[in-house]
Every structure is written in structure tokens, then in C-alpha cells.
């Protein structure tokens, strides 16, 4: 797939937060990024994520990167 095509990465922060009864603001506070940036990630509008942000999100939620992000099958 050429890199300039739209990505199919889906973020599962919504579900992970709901399962933990956590708000986006609380996660943003714990991770150390702004709510706006985390909202961009949650709503699949992010185009890239720093490894440091992903590490912090995984640490706070106690999950692995694959639990936070997945790639939708082509044509789905």
C-alpha cells in the first residue's frame, strides 16, 4: 500500500476507558498529553503517535500497543 493513502488504523481508547471507568481527561492527565491530542487519537484523526505517548498510554491502562490500536482489513 502506498504510504500516501489514508491509514486504516483504529484506536480502541473508547472501549478501554469504558472498561476501566476512566475519563479521557484523567488518562490525559496520567499520560501527560493534552485532552485535545488524546481526543484526536481516540477519534482516529491522529496521523502518527510517538512511541513515548503509546508507552505511557499502555502503562496507564495496563495493556499492550495491539490492544490500543489495530488495523482494519482493507475494503471493510
Amino acid at each position, binding site marked *: 500500500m502506498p504510504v500516501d493513502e489514508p491509514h486504516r488504523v483504529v484506536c480502541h481508547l473508547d472501549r478501554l476507558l469504558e472498561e476501566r471507568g476512566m475519563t479521557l481527561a484523567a488518562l490525559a492527565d496520567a499520560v501527560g498529553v493534552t485532552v485535545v491530542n488524546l481526543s484526536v487519537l481516540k477519534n482516529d484523526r491522529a496521523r502518527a*503517535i510517538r512511541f513515548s*505517548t503509546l508507552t505511557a498510554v499502555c502503562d496507564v491502562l495496563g495493556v499492550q500497543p495491539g490492544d490500543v490500536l489495530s488495523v482494519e482489513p482493507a475494503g471493510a
Partner: protein
Amino acid sequence: MSSRLSRLLTFDRTDRYGLGVLLALVVLVQLVVRVVLPVADWLRGEPVRVPLLSAVEVPALDAVGTAHGEGVYDVLVDASAGQRAAVVAVGVMTVALVAVAAWLVLAVMRSIASGDPFGPATVGRLRLLAAVLVIGAPVLTAAELPVQGWMLGTLDLGGLDPATPVDAPWQAVVGGLVVALLAEAFVVGRRLREDVEGLV
């Protein structure tokens, strides 16, 4: 670099105001010198001052071996209405180009000050500024020389052999090329910004 020197070289609000005033003055001076004064001279019937590039022989200086050669001498020409109109037309063209260049510099300065230096408008303005300098300045010179030649051609120069200066406005051309290079740097900056947008 020391912090003091770094502060001194920072282009801050004072520098922006200073550059704005300076550019306004440059346009104003060009307007007065290239348009207002020639029109005033025309109305008063004063002669037109035309630069003459010529070698002058001075036997007394030659006799003692003093170096002297080609020089630019102002010649007063009792120009016709058509010649005066041509002088004013070139003056208006000069003022227009200087005003456009000044406006472009101010617009780029404003976009940088507003924190959005890499917008497409900035790149377009820088490229236009480069074109004004690289193309506009030589065109103005090319337009001015025939007018001066026209006025000198009506004079009896008393044996003086007028030369045609083939010097292009190199400073403007080089400055324009540097601005064009800067525009390309802004294109790269815009691409980098697009890459960073959406980075969490």
C-alpha cells in the same frame, strides 16, 4: 552564541515596527524622487538631470600623469514633453515595483509574526518577491536606459563619446535569488508541518 547576542539578533516586535517604518520611508522617498520632483521640475520648466557615462580627456591632468577616466556626469537636458512623460512613466513603474516589494515583505513578516510562517500564501509571496527582484529590477533598468539615451541623443555633447552602461542591478538579482531559495525552504517547512500535524 551568548544569550545577549542571541537576544540582540532576534527579530522581535521592535524590529518589525522598524522595518515597517523603513519600508514605508523607502516607498515615500522613491515616490518623491522618481515622480513628484520630476513632475514639479516639468511644471516649473526646469531641465532634466540625465547621467552621462563618458571618458573625459583633461590635458592638464594627462600632463602630470593623474589617473582619470570614465565617469558619470550629470547633464542638464531641456527635455520635450514626451521625454519628460517617459521619465515620469519609468518613475511610476519604479515606485509601483518598490511598493509591491515592500508590501510583500510586510505580508511575509506578518504571517511569521502570527505564528503561521509556512502557509501556502507565504511561499507564494516569497516567490512573487523573488520575481519582482530578479525580473522587475533589470526590466526597470532596461526601460530607463533608452529614455536617457533618447534625451542625450538630442544634445550636442561637444565631442564627448557617451558610453552605455551594461551593468545589471546585480544586488537586486542576487537578493531575488536568495529570496527564491528561502521560498523553497518554506516549502520544505510546510511539508514538515504537515507531517507533524496529527502527531500525538
